[in-house]
């Protein structure tokens, strides 16, 4: 059917992604239980970023979507980072 452009993702692939996500979750818990100081936040956020990338690209099928949609999603995250940066610069130089 021409209307359905979605790629079918196999069960096996989906379960592999879940295993990676679970592994990363336990890595986050492990890493944050050591007190790495300011690096804890960075590491936790980096892993969360990686996890969300996996969910977006596989579970949410972005890997197989049009370039337009992928760019739009990326722009939302870029927009958020810009907002955070501008707000923090504002607070830092008050």
């Amino acid at each position, binding site marked *: *059917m021409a*209307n*359905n*452009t*979605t790629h*079918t*993702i*196999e*069960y096996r692939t*989906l*379960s592999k*992604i*879940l295993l990676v*996500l*679970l592994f990363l*979750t336990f890595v*986050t*818990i492990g890493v*944050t239980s050591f*007190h790495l100081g300011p690096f*804890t*936040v960075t590491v*936790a*956020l980096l*892993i*969360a970023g990686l*996890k*969300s990338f996996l*969910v*977006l690209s*596989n*579970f*949410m*099928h972005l890997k197989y*979507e*049009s370039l337009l*949609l992928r760019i*739009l*999603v990326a722009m*939302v995250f870029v*927009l*958020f980072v810009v*907002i*955070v940066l501008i*707000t*923090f610069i504002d*607070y830092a130089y008050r």
Partner: protein
Amino acid sequence: MSEKAIHVEEHRDDEASKLGMWLFIFTELLLFGGLFLVYSIFRAQYPTEFHQSSLELSVTIGAINTVVLLFSSMTVAMALTAIQKNDQKRALIFIGITLFCAAAFLFNKYFEWGHKIEHGLYPGSDLMPLLDRGHLLYFSLYFFMTGLHALHIIIGMTLLIVCYFKVKSKNINDHDYVLLENGALYWHLVDLIWIFLFPLMYLIS
């Protein structure tokens, strides 16, 4: 009946429906994004208070809920795979598992919140105004953000229950499954938000 009458033009545009769902998801991401921004600013201002308050939360319950949500995110993706393969029975089972996980998540949340409320810690309680500013901000954000997230779980469940019955009545089938696709997207959004909420609220010290 002539061949022509059977092939009636369907007024359907799945691409557009999906794009619409994504635009809605963008607004949701920025809604929670704004809250994460508020959280980060206050966390930068009151690092010790935020750390002390976060110790009050149970990492075990948080971790269990994370696993539950990640698992349910996979099962809803599998429900879509099943419907694409025209496997109605499996699709129903997978949506059922997802709904069960959603209920389990809320059940855990009920006990987690209940524990706090028992100790007089809830928005509008007599205890809250007595806390210093850092602790007050942390717990206000905790209740607001996890509360808003739980509300999204309930909305997602409603959407998936609708999908369940539509799959059952074959209104969602291997030729027309965009509603399940959008329902699944919403469910993944709920998972996506929790991926950030869990480390920020429960873990970071």
